[in-house]
């Protein structure tokens, strides 16, 4: 047996580098506060600077390829569609002509408005994306359990993730076998509609009958035992540095709010 592996449970959970090892809740606090500053500020200069910052951060943390791929995928349509929609939805006679795209006159004000919107959405979702890409769900749930959240919550969250994987697998199997049996899954919409229902039935019924046995099995594993849980995996206690980082992030958020209030009231 792998003694080294067993002994690794004696140490705190180690996920790699310092960022990965931050307490999940501290990390969430940092990411959320930074992301929210973008929502508060709503200036494209700030929003896009944050985006650039996230890319650099991703590079340093070592998740750049995965991050940029995901970030790009959720931003690209948003970016162009918002710019186009704003050209239609904002119309005032005194708008400044901006550029002419193949005979279609764009105006500056709607364009800037669109950039502000896109940049704040990207500025916020980028931070959360970094959080989710560097934090395992089971660590988040473990951190929450340490804060007194019930283990049922952890079960629901983690089991949901596994159920999605399991059910996707069985959906694919059934879809393949439907095709093999000559049931058409291509063709016009009615044909595809008809293919849809025979796949649903077996997937659902097997999943449902499984829940009953799962409940019994978990019950046998003392799932309903109240109080006094212990954990095989133990998260590093939150360090002073982490508290300081959290405080800093919260300060940033407060500063952005103050700036916003001042600029709205015309003081700045």
């Amino acid at each position: 047996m792998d003694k080294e592996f067993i002994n690794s449970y004696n140490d705190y959970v180690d996920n790699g580098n310092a960022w990965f090892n931050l307490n999940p809740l501290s990390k969430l606090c940092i990411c959320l506060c930074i992301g929210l500053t973008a929502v508060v500020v709503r200036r494209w200069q700030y929003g896009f600077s944050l985006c650039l910052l996230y890319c650099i951060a991703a590079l340093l943390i070592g998740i750049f390829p995965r991050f940029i791929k995901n970030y790009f995928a959720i931003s690209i349509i948003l970016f162009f569609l918002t710019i186009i929609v704003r050209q239609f939805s904002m119309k005032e006679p005194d708008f400044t002509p901006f550029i002419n795209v193949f005979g279609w006159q764009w105006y500056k004000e709607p364009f800037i408005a669109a950039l502000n919107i896109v940049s704040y959405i990207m500025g916020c979702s980028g931070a959360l994306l970094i959080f989710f890409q560097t934090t395992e769900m089971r660590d988040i749930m473990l951190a929450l359990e340490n804060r007194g959240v019930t283990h049922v919550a952890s079960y629901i969250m983690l089991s949901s993730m596994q159920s999605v994987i399991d059910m996707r697998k069985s959906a694919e199997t059934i879809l393949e076998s439907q095709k093999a049996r000559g049931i058409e899954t291509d063709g016009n919409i009615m044909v595809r509609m008809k293919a849809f229902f025979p796949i649903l039935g077996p997937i659902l019924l097997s999943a449902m009958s499984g829940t009953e046995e799962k409940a019994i099995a978990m019950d046998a594993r003392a799932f309903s035992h109240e109080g006094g849980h212990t954990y095989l995996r133990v998260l590093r206690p939150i360090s002073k540095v982490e508290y300081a980082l959290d405080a800093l992030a919260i300060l940033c958020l407060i500063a952005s709010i103050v700036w916003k209030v001042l600029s709205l009231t015309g003081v700045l």
Partner: protein
Amino acid sequence: MKKDNKLAWFLVPIGVAVNFIFGTLVLMLRLPIYLDCAGTIIVAALCGTWPGVIVGLVSNILNAITDPGTLLYAPLNMAFAVLAAYLSKKGVFKKFVPTLISSLGFAFIGGVIGALITWARFGFDFGSGTTSVVVLPLYAATGLPKFICQIIGEFLCDLLDKVITVVVCYFILKAFPTRFLSKLPLGDIYISDEAKALEE
């Protein structure tokens, strides 16, 4: 004897998986619907408001892992659960025609709450999503206030989806075995009269 609600919590992950898988299946079969709240409605109809709400919330959190923006739309999915549990208690999902009509309710929630969230998210102006295909021409043609256009647009886009969703849910709820239903908080509603007669 009092019902043990334990089983309801074990159904939540299945509800979440149904939300995801139906969504994936309709993509694979290239059907023009989402069907991404069927699990929420089924669990809410069988287990009541809270389990349904949690299915909605968890589904959106899991979506947020790859697209954090979807977290904003969690209230939508949770509101579907509240409505589904209410309608279920009223026995709406037991008959086909009332079920069909209930899709108006779901589309209305989808329209109003969806529009509100989109509205706030996009700086109190039109959102940029598939609905803008309907909303922009509507605005250009009628000149109605933008927010009204957004609501109507989201409602229309949602209606077809919700009609199919409730029909799917109707047949699924009908297919559950009595043995299983008897253990769920609202399961008794869906147990056939013949089975109930055996208890007397």
